[in-house]
């Protein structure tokens, strides 16, 4: 049973790239312990939403609250330190750092029961084999695990995941789904941006669908499944 304690509240944010108005009043929320999927076609502003939350492209208008803290214009590192973990699009593994360094680079420990290096290696066994390899030497799936591991090592309360299945073999996507479920079971809040509908709907508690910089659907995975028009118009199913 979910307790409705707001973890992330995004209200009416407008984000621009130069003159182009990319996010046109996005509002969404993630409750504690909830996995929320943000769906939509390419270029509708999903990644920009993530980037706006994490401070890479701060919104010009609107408000972003983490719990009750205003992080609208906070620098990225401050937002991260307040408990936001980022698994970015394209993974952005540090290629010149070893796997070990990638994992431990930003590690922050919590008092009890947080993620530790040992727990990470238990969770991602393939990484344990390759600790001394450079980040650039990993396969795509391993890189994705590493990106998730790197974010978890900061012991976040909320993880922003941007297309974790992108470019991965089906078998690996299944593995990523398994990991996501495990994280949900551990009570982590996740905002998941995905193109892989079945993966997203398989793990999400709630779903938002975006189109052209705006939210066009908000509801449960079941609700979305039951709405063929939305599925067809905005997700091409």
């Amino acid at each position: 049973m979910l307790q409705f304690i707001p973890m992330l509240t995004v209200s009416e944010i407008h984000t621009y790239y130069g003159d182009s108005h990319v996010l046109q009043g996005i509002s969404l929320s993630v409750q504690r312990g909830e996995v929320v999927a943000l769906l939509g076609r390419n270029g509708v502003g999903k990644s920009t939403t993530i980037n706006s939350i994490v401070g890479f492209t701060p919104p010009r208008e609107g408000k972003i609250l983490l719990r009750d803290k205003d992080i609208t214009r906070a620098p990225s590192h401050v937002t991260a330190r307040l408990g936001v973990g980022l698994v970015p699009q394209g993974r952005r593994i540090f290629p010149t750092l070893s796997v070990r360094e990638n994992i431990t680079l930003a590690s922050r420990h919590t008092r009890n029961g947080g993620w530790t290096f040992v727990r990470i290696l238990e969770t991602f066994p393939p990484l344990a084999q390759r600790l001394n390899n450079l980040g650039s030497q990993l396969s795509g799936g391993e890189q994705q695990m590493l990106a998730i591991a790197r974010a978890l090592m900061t012991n976040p309360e909320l993880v922003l995941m941007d297309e974790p299945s992108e470019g991965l073999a089906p078998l690996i996507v299944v593995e990523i789904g398994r990991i996501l479920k495990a994280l949900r079971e551990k009570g982590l809040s996740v905002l998941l941006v995905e193109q892989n509908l079945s993966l997203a709907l398989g793990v999400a508690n709630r779903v938002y669908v975006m189109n052209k910089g705006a939210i066009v659907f908000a509801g449960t995975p079941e609700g979305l499944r039951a709405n063929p028009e939305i599925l067809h118009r905005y997700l091409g199913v």
Partner: protein
Amino acid sequence: MENFLIQLLNGFVSGMLLFILAAGLSLIFGLMDVIALTHGAFYLLGGYIGLTMVRALDSFWLALLVAPLVVGLLGLVIENFFIRRLYGRARHLDQVLLTFGMALITIDLTRAQWGAYVESVSGPPQLAGQFRIFSVDFPIYRLALLAFGLLLALALWLIINRTRLGAIVRAGVSDAQMVSGLGINIQSVFAGVFAFGCALAGLAGVVGAPILSLYPGLDSEILILALVVVVVGGLGTLEGAFFGSLLIGLADTFGKAFIPEFARFLIFAVMAAVLLIRPGGLFGLKGADS
């Protein structure tokens, strides 16, 4: 043969001197993508501060400590108030204009403070005298410089490759935004690295002064040498700076010794040759990519 070996030794010493004076520039460029044209001016400033320390306190060792500290602090101030505003701007021209302007101001101030006379700093008395190698009395100071350069290179290598701070720096080189997305204040790491690079320039000014003297105009010579080393080695890598320094030091020394007519141009010829074969420099990451 004996002469060749001595010149080889000269080449290594020269290379280490080059490494000391180029390491900071390389580091700053590598992490921050900033071409710090202040480097030559800060070298000179460090040398002059060293001169003052040696004169006032008669201690080369203290000078070796204070000059980098002062220059590093100056670097911190400059980063904080000026360079910081330029991050994320695609154009290098802004940085070039800014750091060049800073260099001119620094040079004018050193001129006002220390005058235009050629100055020299004597090495520490502990390192005075010569050590006989074959029939040559080789200056102990130069041997110490060689050792110091190697130690500095080793220390920097260890810091960059074996510490978490070093990992952050390397991570910042490839993706600064991502580092900050992980909760690390890369901005202050930038500031620290810039200050440290400037401090290295100041340090180089002190250790170089007994060999290269101090005078107005030296700043631009140093800057050019440092740029050549950094370009040859590959922009922004420590290994590049190290082996680039050795290559240029050896080329310069053997050029001067055996084909002096071309000595002046030789290092530039070497630079051109390296860039022809490896456009990114010996250890280049950035240049090779783009």
